[in-house]
């Protein structure tokens, strides 16, 4: 018995796991997310049918009403739940170039790169997203990854995730009589 115990103990102390991860010599902190300027491959924005280009309706000679108000002529379905107290349409949508968005600096941003607009407030999410850690990822873990735009998952006017129906629970185990 003692011999067995000793043998086991000796084994337990001496055995080196062949696949043990040794990062002592080579631990390098993870690379930063791709730099902010890097263009990322994303699918086209998920516009509703017939909504884009915006300039189809918002013609250049149309007067721009910058007042906060209840929308009555169009876009009535939009209920802003995105820090609505401090924000209005034209904080993000460009009043002069209706097919474009703009940053706080005034720099115009196409809808295809809307993540830059989101990222100016949500910097931590933006960084995580570029690294592939915020959001859903597909593609190759060792190569080309498919990114989604923020707006593929979040409604930009009400970005909080809506609760969803769960798939059914597993059956409880039953005894055999």
């Amino acid at each position, binding site marked *: 018995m003692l011999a067995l115990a000793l043998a086991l103990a000796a084994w337990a102390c001496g055995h080196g*796991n*062949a*696949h*043990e*991860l040794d*990062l002592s010599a080579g631990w*390098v*902190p*993870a*690379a930063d*997310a791709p730099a902010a300027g890097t263009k990322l491959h994303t699918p086209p924005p998920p516009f509703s049918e017939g909504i884009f280009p915006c300039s189809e309706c918002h013609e250049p000679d149309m007067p721009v009403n910058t007042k906060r108000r209840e929308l009555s002529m169009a876009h009535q379905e939009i209920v802003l739940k995105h820090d609505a107290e401090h924000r209005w349409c034209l904080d993000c949508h460009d009043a002069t170039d209706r097919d474009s968005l703009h940053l706080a600096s005034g720099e115009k941003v196409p809808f295809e790169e809307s993540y830059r607009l989101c990222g100016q407030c949500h910097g931590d999410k933006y960084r*995580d997203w570029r*690294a*592939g*850690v*915020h*959001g*859903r*990822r*597909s*593609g*190759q*873990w*060792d*190569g080309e990854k498919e990114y989604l735009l923020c707006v593929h*998952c979040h409604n930009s006017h009400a970005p909080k*995730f809506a*609760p*969803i*129906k*769960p*798939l*059914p*629970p*597993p*059956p*409880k185990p039953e005894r055999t009589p």
Partner: protein
Amino acid sequence: MNAPDTTRRDFLCTLAGCAAALAGACGDVTHTEFFRSHFKELTPEDLDGILKKIERECETKYGKDVDVKNTPAREGVQFAYALDISRCVGCRRCVYACVAENNQSRDPVVQWIRVLEMDKEKGIDFEHANPYYDAETVPRPGHTYLPVACQHCENPPCVKTCPVGATWKEPDGIVVIDYDWCIGCRCCMSACPYGARRFNWKEPSLPADEMNPNLHVLGNRPRPKGVVEKCTWCVHRVRDGRYPACVEVCPVGARKFGNLLDPSSEIRYVLDKKRVFVLKNELATHPRFYYFYGL
């Protein structure tokens, strides 16, 4: 199964000398299988023969062309997984994607991922966890969700305890099972602190039209009754560079996967920038499955 070769069967039974032990299963065993070597010692020809045999069996049983691979581990790759529990909403999309991808039995229901609903105020408390929650919508207020599957431990107690070496850790860190070698003693299930292993208590059933024909011999190929199975991180996908099915399906993007040795991988980013923890760290199993708070 194939029509058994009677003489070989007789020989086998005589040789084994324990007719009682073999009474139930003799018909399924051929001479070659009886004297087969351990998976790691198979010659390339033997292994090829085994892959071909599985292909033939699957084609007969499910009537479709299947591809059984034995893609080996890649050099310089150590897999790890991370799950953002501040994002998981408990929708179980991962559970069902896993079942579809990995050919789990539909009846009896075998699921490799178990999603536990926990009371927020109790923290991570298995004693009060509920895997059977159902609701109109999730997340339910006051609850968090903790999906659990194989943790692919660095120091796996299941591997240590298997009396025949039918389960082992691959060079890339995936813990696999040879379903042809497992004797079904369930020592590994007793040893696993994460309830990750499932036993085929009866013949698994898998509708032919739902069968995934992209198979790995140590992964998602259909299993026989009487053996243990578990998550393999979709070994048939990840060794081809793809993400596990659960990673791709997760609607909130809570699941992350990658190569620990690659500094630009998502997994290294998580370890570097986030607060991570592992389940039951006091047991020193050193899981390769990290949970983190992304928020």
